[in-house]
């Protein structure tokens, strides 16, 4: 009893150092242990809370592992068809320009089936934020080759490793988007260390500010891990990501506004 009383005495507002953000719901995340999605959701939720965006935000969730994203953040959501989120977001923002509109998409969604929607929304300079989770694999369907799967990387549809001669090369969609006149701020980040989480959060905050200023499309790629799809422990997957993904998808800004 003495111990319990002790904990109760410690739980006081002045001792609070970390808590669930109010924007995250009570629903249990459907992600595998060690997956980057949960961290990405959390910082997105933190930004929405800190910037007071709950009543303005309209999110568009994708098809893929984060298909149920609308269960986790306490804002209005639209669930888009596979790859179509940038088209959906285009209409929302055009019809409700005062709202904060964003999409959250994986690599299959954004860089394979949704290539046209991604490129054209960015090329029109739609005033939306796109968060692009790149883990080089189709996680939801069980680990198939993605447009961003690295050369030689094994997946259930490239069981002998991705042979670029027959399966094509990994697509650097973020690099392509950075070349488009309509994109305003394009950056590649990660969420696998506290320092990187801070950088990604800063990038999202910038994108929020640019949208308020009507600057055009902001795309934030988050290079992430997929312990289950890569068949690694979370720690191994983060190390593998640093050693293999980052050389191909180097972190940093690809397009920054002149301010």
């Amino acid at each position: 009893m003495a111990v319990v009383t002790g904990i109760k005495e410690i739980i006081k507002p002045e001792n609070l150092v970390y808590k669930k953000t109010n924007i995250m719901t009570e629903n249990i995340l459907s992600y595998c242990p060690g997956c980057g999605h949960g961290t990405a959701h959390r910082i997105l939720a933190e930004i929405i809370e800190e910037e007071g965006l709950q009543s303005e935000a309209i999110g568009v969730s994708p098809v893929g592992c984060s298909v149920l994203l609308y269960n986790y953040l306490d804002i209005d959501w639209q669930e888009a068809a596979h790859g179509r989120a940038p088209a959906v977001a285009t209409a929302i923002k055009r019809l409700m320009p005062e709202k904060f509109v964003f999409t959250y998409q994986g690599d299959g969604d954004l860089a394979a089936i949704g290539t046209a929607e991604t490129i054209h929304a960015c090329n029109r300079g739609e005033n939306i934020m796109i968060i692009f989770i790149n883990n080089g694999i189709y996680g939801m369907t069980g680990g198939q080759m993605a447009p961003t799967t690295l050369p030689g990387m094994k997946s259930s549809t490239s069981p002998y490793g991705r042979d670029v001669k027959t399966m094509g090369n990994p697509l650097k969609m973020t690099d392509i988007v950075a070349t488009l006149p309509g994109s305003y701020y394009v950056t590649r980040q990660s969420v696998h260390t506290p320092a990187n989480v801070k950088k990604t959060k800063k990038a999202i905050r910038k994108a929020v500010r640019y949208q308020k200023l009507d600057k055009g499309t902001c795309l934030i790629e988050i290079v992430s891990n997929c312990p289950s799809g890569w068949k690694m422990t979370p720690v191994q997957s983060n190390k593998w990501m640093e050693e293999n993904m980052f050389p191909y998808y180097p972190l940093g800004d690809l397009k920054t506004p002149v301010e």
Partner: protein
Amino acid sequence: MKKELRLMKGNEAVAEAAIRAGVDGYFGYPITPQTEIIEYLMEANPAETTGMIVLQAESEIAAINMVYGGAACGKKVMTSSSSPGISLKQEGITYIAGAELPCLIVNVVRGGPGLGTIQPAQSDYFQATKGGGHGDYHLIVLAPASVQEMADFVDLSFELAFKYRNPVMMLSDGAIGQMMEKVYLSPQKERSKTIYDWATTGKPATRERNIITSLDLDPNGQELFNLKLIAKYNLIRENEVRYEEFQIEDAEYLLVAYGTSARVCQKSVQLAREEGIKLGLLRPITLFPFPSKRINELANRVKGMLSVEMSAGQMVEDVLLSVNGKVPVFHFGRMGGIVTTPEEVVECLKSKFIGG
């Protein structure tokens, strides 16, 4: 307020009627024979007057997903296309039906399959009335037979779409879309400021978050949703059947035809009657819901029916189901973009029913 009289193409009438109906957004992609719709809207530039958004998308797929996004905000949004483009939109249409969103999709039908022809046809009847995309769903389908109806059905479509939270298709064809007729245009309506409690407009503290989705991973939940849709479609069948009858009082034979074919068949009725054949015409205005009850009643009074469509025979299946074996039913129609002539219809009627 007095209606304004203009001479317009069907496609132009849809575009002008959309502006006047207070539509919030049009998202389209060019395809013959309906491109005048987006051309007219771009020229009219309603962003400057009503604030209506007009956007040329990168594909029909993007356009229908823009409609999804706008409709989910509770906005009056629409798209238009012609047959091959409507096929591309089917993914978006089934998501819209699955998310129970209101919108208008105009199909100015051309001949198919495949790239087909750019000439008028009615060969998208199955696609329009039986679902079109995957899953169990129906669109409300309105079939205009004149430029006037292409204009009038814009308002009616949105009325029905919002009443039932269901996508509405205006199933026109290349003849009505392209031909010019006089049309009385309704006065300009203001764009609606209604904020729907189901729409994604940003979550205020006063309500739970709104989620627009067609996904339910729980089979029990999904089946309940399917049952809810069935109940809605039955309500639509009960309340929204629309049709027009022409000289059926003493008719011994009945033509069933919609859109351009119905116009042709009016003349066929006249020609047949000049030869002493008592012919009438029923024109379905709603193809879903189909006027099955009325056709079944008429089957008690006539000796036979001929379904006239510019297709290989699609609506005839619904006529057969409605008649349920009471009298013989045949199909007649030209294809490939050829408009049936009134004389051909009478010849077919005579050969099927009268002999000779």
